[in-house]
């Protein structure tokens, strides 16, 4: 849920990175954090287990510049991808303005991808959102690995609605900022339309 503050002239929005366990959600945020100038970012918080798996969420506040005198601030969150953290995933979706689905391109993770998209749809609906209407982009991550599905196949299974989609290699940054920019743009466009 966006927050527009006339006093500080700020537009604040929330973007959630969703996807199956180990698909690269946290890596997306880490890359954004590493490549953003200090004045445009806040501290990145990772609530993770001792083995560095996301336990509750990662959080990264980011400024993307000004529109007509309003600073645009985006709060990026990841969810824990492991199946049994579903209660936490639901909480993080509260008040979301835009969603990035990070898919693991490896063939053996296709079932996990499908399960996660369905889980996203159900959990969004519980919060009163419709996946077909919310600003939404899909990222096919891990394109550098040997055993990956074709983009056509990924698209057919995970993105039948043909929302904006990006191929990515998150550790090296391929596709990371393109994904972020696209979802941020969709969120602002939706806010403008909604207003």
């Amino acid at each position: 849920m966006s927050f527009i503050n006339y006093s500080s002239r700020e537009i604040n929005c929330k973007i959630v990175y969703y996807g199956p366990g180990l698909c690269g959600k946290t890596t997306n945020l880490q890359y954004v954090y590493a490549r953003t100038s200090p004045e445009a970012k806040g501290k990145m918080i990772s609530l993770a287990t001792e083995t560095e798996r996301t336990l509750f969420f990662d959080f990264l506040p980011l400024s993307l510049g000004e529109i007509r005198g309003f600073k645009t601030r985006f709060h990026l969150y990841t969810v824990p991808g492991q199946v049994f953290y579903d209660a936490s995933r639901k909480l993080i979706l509260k008040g979301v303005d835009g969603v990035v689905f990070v898919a693991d391109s490896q063939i053996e993770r296709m079932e996990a991808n499908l399960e996660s998209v369905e889980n996203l749809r159900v959990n969004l609906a519980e919060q009163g959102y419709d996946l077909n209407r919310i600003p939404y982009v899909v990222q096919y991550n891990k394109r550098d690995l040997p055993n990956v599905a074709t983009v056509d196949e990924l698209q057919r299974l995970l993105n039948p609605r043909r929302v904006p989609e990006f191929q990515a290699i998150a550790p090296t940054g391929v596709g990371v900022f393109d994904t972020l920019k696209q979802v941020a743009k969709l969120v602002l466009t939706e806010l403008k339309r909604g207003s």
Partner: protein
Amino acid sequence: MNPGLVLYEEEFRKISGICDRLTRDAGAKVVFLVDKNGQLIAATGQSQNLDTTSLASLTAGNVAAMGGLAKLIGENEFPSQFHEGEHESLHMSIVAGKVVLVVIFDARSSLGLVRLRVKKASEELARVFEQLARRQATPGARNPLAEITDDDIDDLFST
């Protein structure tokens, strides 16, 4: 899509005034107000050296998690929480069902005093949020983003 929270100058001044007074009356170090989605609305007291953005996000995460726990045991939510540290303590309470009032205090104050002052401030804040909700619901309320064009949005991402 949910229209979100819009905060206008007048209500912001009232909210800041209430938080300021609470900081003094409760002998608190810092008072801040966060919406349940983790957006910081106001911060008063010695907040200059605090990472208020992170505090806001973690507060919302904590309140959301406790709300989830409450529902599991048949409660609607836990309206307030208290965390006692060695030097600093933290009191959180839900105001008007949608924002969280956080008070950070040390040994110079006490939980009893904080609770007492929070109760009064919460009532005042609830009235401001009612006023804000009415203003947002008014037909013809100022559209904050109506003047923004598609080109403005494109320009933001052109570099």
